[in-house]
């Protein structure tokens, strides 16, 4: 890493290296501004009590905060977390696995490990299925 640092710090690269980042940022800003401007120009104008409320089509913002809501939200969130975290673990694995010498002894071990890891998720999925997590009635 030490031979990279001076290059990154050097001024002669200039801002040209950041052109893609700049493009991404300006696209993001332009997208937001364009949406607001477009809806101002071509959007229909209707007002009313419900329309003026925060979270127009979401939760009720007025009333008691101690409202009970379905436990299914938690279960869905937990199940989502399971698969979400698994995908996060797969990324570094995929990057490392692509760089392993196919003839080295690490290769089958790495593959076996990730398959074992996937197996645990399958077990978790089967468990959730049997417990009725995915039953939306």
């Amino acid at each position, binding site marked *: 890493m030490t031979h990279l640092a001076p290059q990154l710090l050097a001024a002669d690269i200039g801002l040209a290296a950041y052109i893609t980042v700049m493009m991404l940022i300006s696209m993001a800003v332009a997208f937001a501004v364009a949406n607001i401007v477009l809806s101002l120009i071509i959007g229909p104008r209707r007002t009313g009590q419900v329309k003026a409320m925060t979270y127009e089509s979401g939760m009720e913002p007025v009333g008691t905060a101690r409202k009970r809501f379905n436990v299914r939200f938690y279960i869905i969130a937990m199940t989502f977390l399971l698969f979400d975290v698994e995908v996060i673990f797969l990324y570094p694995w995929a990057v490392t696995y692509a760089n392993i010498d196919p003839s080295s*002894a*690490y290769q089958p*071990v790495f593959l076996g490990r990730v398959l074992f890891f996937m*197996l645990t998720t399958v*077990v978790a999925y089967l*468990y959730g299925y*049997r*417990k009725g997590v995915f039953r939306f009635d």
Partner: protein
Amino acid sequence: MMSLLAAMSAGPDVPPMIAKLSIIVPEIVMFVGTCVVLMLGLSKTSTIRRASVGAAGLALIIAGIAAATGPQGVADSLLPHVMPYAKVLIAAVGFILLLLLTGTVDREVEAEADAGKPFDVLRANRAEFYAFFMFSLTGLMLCASADDLIWLFLALELTSLPTYVMVSISTARSRSQEAGVKYFFLGAFSAAMLLMGFTFIYGATGYTQLFGYHSIASVIGAQGSLGPIATLGFVMAIVGLCFKIAAVPMHFYTPDVYQGAAAGVSAMLAFVPKTAGFLGLMLLTSAVGWGLGGGYGLPSELRLLLWVVAALTMTFGNVLALMQRSVKRILAYSSIAHSGYMLVGIIAGPGAWGAGAPGNGLGAVLFYLMSYGVMNVGAFAVVASLEKQSGGEAEDVDDLRGLCKTHPLLGWIMVISSVTMLGLPFAIGFLGKFYLFTAGLRAGEVALIVVMGLNSAIAAFYYLRLAGAPLLEHRDEHEASLVVTAFNSRKLAGLISAVGVLALLPFADRLATLSDHAASYGASSEAAQASASQAEHVDARSVTDH
């Protein structure tokens, strides 16, 4: 698969990652077993649901055999032989605990299913309960394999997290929920403390590996002293581990949690997190070496900390146990006191290199863990087997009166178990204490041994009360009689424990040799060779680099 892995690990050019896989074969077996238990426990058929317990037992047996026949030592470790001993012990005690845990959850759900109603999957807890039990034991085995701070932390958490849930779902009483919440929050607090300590250790040394050429042990060995940041780290880590072993600054949860949980779960809590904590303590203290503080002891700061913790733990545990009426609370405080005794072994350390069987403090700790694991189950099995006619466990000491007459088997289990825990001769508990005494004396910790002796005398009061109530006292005529549980395996667990403490006595010498070998400190010859060749390799490489 095992032989394949063994063959792979035997070769000289095997990458360390594959060699490491061969030492966690028991854990892999346990994990696969856990998945099977989880699936079987949710089956629609009642017979298959019941078979899930059998699957758990089978996984424990296979894991125990795999540990006994697997690799006997690890390269690059200062405690190279602790792993097989600890894993076989965990599998064996785990099996007895499994017998004791039968019928803890799902009695209503199963009764309804037997009566012809459809099986209510959502309300049933059996699959989770046994799976969590197995997960916890898997984590405990991983603690024994740990050679790295991150691994150790994850293993300790895998041991603890399932127990929080098990406490909460073990009974339907609100007391169990309360115990679960208390246990969880204090456990999270202690885990944060432990992790903070590990962070400081890493910050001070730059390594997370405990042993080897590039490791915490090598850095601290080269420095010759701990230094302030590493000291802070080790102090915080030890305090965090005190929660697991229920030692004094972190012991407050113990009686409430043991009382709130079902008796089988309490028996498990007395063995599983305690063993995890002591394995963690052994690894951490071994990493700072036994030669830093002069002689063969720990660095003076850590020795002082552990000394104070040990003395306070024994005294608090025993004195507070005197004031209890509930058998489970007495056993909880006695569990605290036993942790105090075992800390003496940690302070004494392995002694001079090559010291004989009675001089190795770490070996004494391993032996004590074994004897405590066996004798502790008996007392809890009696509580788990007795129920009041009004429902609930018969956990008051007065409920035990005259038990030797009314229920001779349970009564005698209680007598034998409490007399063993007291440390009377002719049972395995005495030898455990004897080895700790000897190790402490060899290390010159006379004051601590005096405290321990005094505490053993205090402990006699409540242990003799536990033994005397069933044996000598009589039950009042007008008192409602107790109901013995329908789960015979619980009685079997108690019987195994009571017979075990007596039957292991002829083999105590052999067991002591085994535990001493398991705790042998310093790299084994093959491990030393491996690390030496690695060191040469690294040196050669660094020479060519420059």
